[in-house]
């Protein structure tokens, strides 16, 4: 079980996770919110409201895409089984939580991206210099916008983006 002294570490983890960038497009699961939920549960901290909202929305969206919802079947078969996720709280000691925090911080600060710096050769590839710019522009718009007729023709004919 997490000792009372560990709770500051958990709080640090949660504040750090809240600073993580939000997904550009919606996915079935989000690293940021799922981990905030998890560490809040481990440290006994109340989960922020917006995270609970997001979770609800994700579950709703998932329902509409699933042909067969195994969750409802499971619930009908084994009603007594607990529904919440088992976060294995007993495993977390102060040391482990500090270690998790360190790694999370390294990820947040892009430690390895800076350590293994790559140059323009890969980021602006000479075979397709516009590739990443166009990808990011499309994602900023939510990935929903369609291409116009003439640019689409150009893409098909040249194969470049």
């Amino acid at each position, binding site marked *: 079980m997490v000792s009372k002294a560990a709770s500051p570490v958990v709080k640090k983890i949660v504040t750090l996770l809240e600073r*993580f*960038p939000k*997904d*550009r497009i919606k*996915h*079935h*699961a*989000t*690293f*940021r919110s*799922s*981990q905030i*939920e*998890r560490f809040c549960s481990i440290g006994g901290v109340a989960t922020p409201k917006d995270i609970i909202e997001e979770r609800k929305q994700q579950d709703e969206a998932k329902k509409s895409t699933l042909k067969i919802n195994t969750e409802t079947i499971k619930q009908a078969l084994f009603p007594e089984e607990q529904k919440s*996720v088992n*976060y*294995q709280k007993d*495993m*977390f*000691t102060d*040391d*482990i939580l*500090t*270690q*998790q925090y*360190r*790694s*999370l911080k*390294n*990820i*947040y*600060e*892009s*430690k*390895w*991206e800076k*350590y*293994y*710096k*790559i*140059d323009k*050769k*890969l*980021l602006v*590839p*000479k*075979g*397709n210099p516009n*590739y*990443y*710019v166009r*990808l*990011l522009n499309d*994602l900023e718009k939510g990935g929903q916008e369609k291409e116009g007729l003439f640019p689409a023709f150009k893409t098909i004919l040249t*194969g*470049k983006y």
Partner: protein
Amino acid sequence: MLRATKGLTTIGLGRGGLGTPVGSSLTLLRFKSDTLSTATPKDFSPHAFARHSGLPNIPNPETPNKDIDPKRKLEKPVYERGRVTMPQWKKAFGEAFVSLFGIDMDKIRAGSIGGSKYFYMCKDQGLQFKDEPLSESAVFWYETLGLPRTFAQWYQITVLHIWMLFVRMRAMPFKIGKNYQQKIVDKLFKDIELRLSEEMNVLSGSIRDRYMKDFHSQMIGIVGSLDEALASESDSILAATLWRNVFNGDRNIDVVKLEAVVRYVRMQLYVLDKISDRAFGFGDFEFVSPSETVDPLTPEEEKQLKTATRNKYDPGNEKVLPSQRSVLSIDE
């Protein structure tokens, strides 16, 4: 050339007393949870780095470890198993043929290097069979990271490696790079279809097709989101993508292990960034093993690497064989 140091020599020997390495480099030391080091030294290999986490593997109930017995195993083609020697007359005939018809060797090479050598390299990273000992890289993925030993997981690992090659192939001249990409994807799906029918015992063609369509849409998703992570130049987005795909969105993820994979990917991309078009196109690239680490090159070493590549591919005085001709750049 790139300096890669074995995880065992740097950690096992360099840091005496932390653990006793037994036998191979795979039985690396494991820190006891009371002596957890909070620092993360840069000479750690991703494998050692993941092992130094104090949190034990927590099985994910959503992805059970349900591997099946293979019906029979597909064999690697002879020319990918090791050193193959060709009789002299065949070589001479080939050279004459290439020279006579003016064959574009960059086009031909996409098949033998991209579609064969590089594909098998990616395939072997996470290849495993039920109840069989794991290869060195597979130990990293399945034992250390605790990922389920399944076909779907193998696919995720393979596509991650293929994506890294894609990133490099985009930086080649457009037509050639695209050809390499096409060949590797063709081979991947041909191989999946064979593996499903021969190894996984999926006998119905329509079910195989359905699986393959599913794998195809997964591939679009993985490549798209990894590209997003690369373009945003941020480890947090890369970590989120890897968590969604390689770690199957596991809620009980060990962040140390996630960081180890982030590091592994960055390390490979760094090597790919430093290798020249010519060397990459001729199949000189190999993935750095998870139990090895890469040190960033100094400008001096980069120069040495360039000279070494030039000496190998353009010695100056010697005549270049028709089959060795290429328009790929030696310097970039």
